[in-house]
């Protein structure tokens, strides 16, 4: 016998992501999901973003890693609430893990939650967490050809950070080529060249993020 199913394979993850979205909207908190390869500078970017925005917004961080609390401890050392998720081998975060993590935060007293996804350019693109925006970080040493090899993550990101911009002189990174490919995959995403380490270029990224946070806060007050 033939049995019709016609179901989304990730239906379970998507349903929980929808619930997360509602929880974030009710609390009026903006959630951004940072995706990148290991070592591209996710944690450093989070620290730079905190430094730029902590006077204006109440911030918390959710750290996704296969193991260890190292990154969460780095964030907490700056007086910012940080929840560590250990995926225990899984190579991406899922909406159920985010749900458990936000239960440890007082969402109502926050404006911004930054999620550091597991270092991976492939599967985080497929899993909706209920976040407002996915943003990817590519670092200069990884090379300008990455959008050809991992198009999905560039397509789904609402902004692209080009990190370790301070190292441009020592790598043969072709910025014009990079901008052209990203533009073809995702013409609407702004690209922010930045050095999370020196702080160069962080302001433009922080301005973009602020505008997005304010839009959500405005919406929450109207509701």
């Amino acid at each position, binding site marked *: 016998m*033939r049995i019709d199913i*016609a*179901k989304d*394979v990730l239906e379970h993850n998507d349903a929980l992501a929808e619930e997360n979205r509602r929880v974030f909207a009710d609390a009026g908190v903006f959630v951004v999901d940072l995706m990148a390869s290991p070592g591209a500078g996710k944690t450093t970017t989070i620290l730079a973003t905190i430094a730029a925005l902590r006077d204006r917004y109440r911030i918390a961080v959710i750290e996704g890693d296969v193991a260890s609390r190292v990154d969460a401890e780095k964030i907490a050392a700056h007086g910012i609430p940080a929840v560590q998720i250990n995926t225990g081998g899984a190579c991406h975060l899922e909406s159920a893990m985010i749900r458990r993590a936000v239960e440890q935060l007082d969402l109502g007293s926050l404006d911004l939650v930054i999620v550091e996804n597991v270092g991976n350019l492939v*599967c985080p693109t497929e899993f909706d967490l209920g976040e407002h925006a996915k943003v990817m970080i590519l670092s200069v040493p990884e090379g300008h050809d990455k959008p050809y090899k991992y198009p999905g993550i560039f397509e789904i990101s609402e902004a692209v950070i080009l990190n370790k911009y301070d190292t441009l002189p020592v790598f043969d990174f072709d910025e014009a080529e990079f901008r052209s490919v990203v533009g073809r*995959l995702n013409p609407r995403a702004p690209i922010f060249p930045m050095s999370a380490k020196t702080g160069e270029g962080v302001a433009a990224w922080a301005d973009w993020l602020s505008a997005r946070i304010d839009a959500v806060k405005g919406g929450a007050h109207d509701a």
Partner: protein
Amino acid sequence: MHEMGICDGILSSALRAAEDAGARRITRIEVSIGELTEVVDEALRFAFETLRRGTMADQAELVVNLVQARSECADCGAAFRHDRFDPKCPECGSYVVRLTQGKELRIDAIDAE
């Protein structure tokens, strides 16, 4: 790794549907995978071979329908096929297009007995 999770979703849906129908064996599982997803066909088949062992889908055939990427232009309404690097309207040149298919990760149907 990633295909393992996807395949796990496919198999559990299939097994649940077969059990609900009182079937004892699944002979065929049909899925639709969009060409804009990150799923690698070979990795999915490998995951399937591994995960189906010891289940009632032990001997099942996995049929993958690859779904082409297609979009509709928001400016002129043209519908067109494209690859992932050029989601651009061939009629008017606009980049303001809406994807209509190509991101599917769907289990369509099973054959069971």
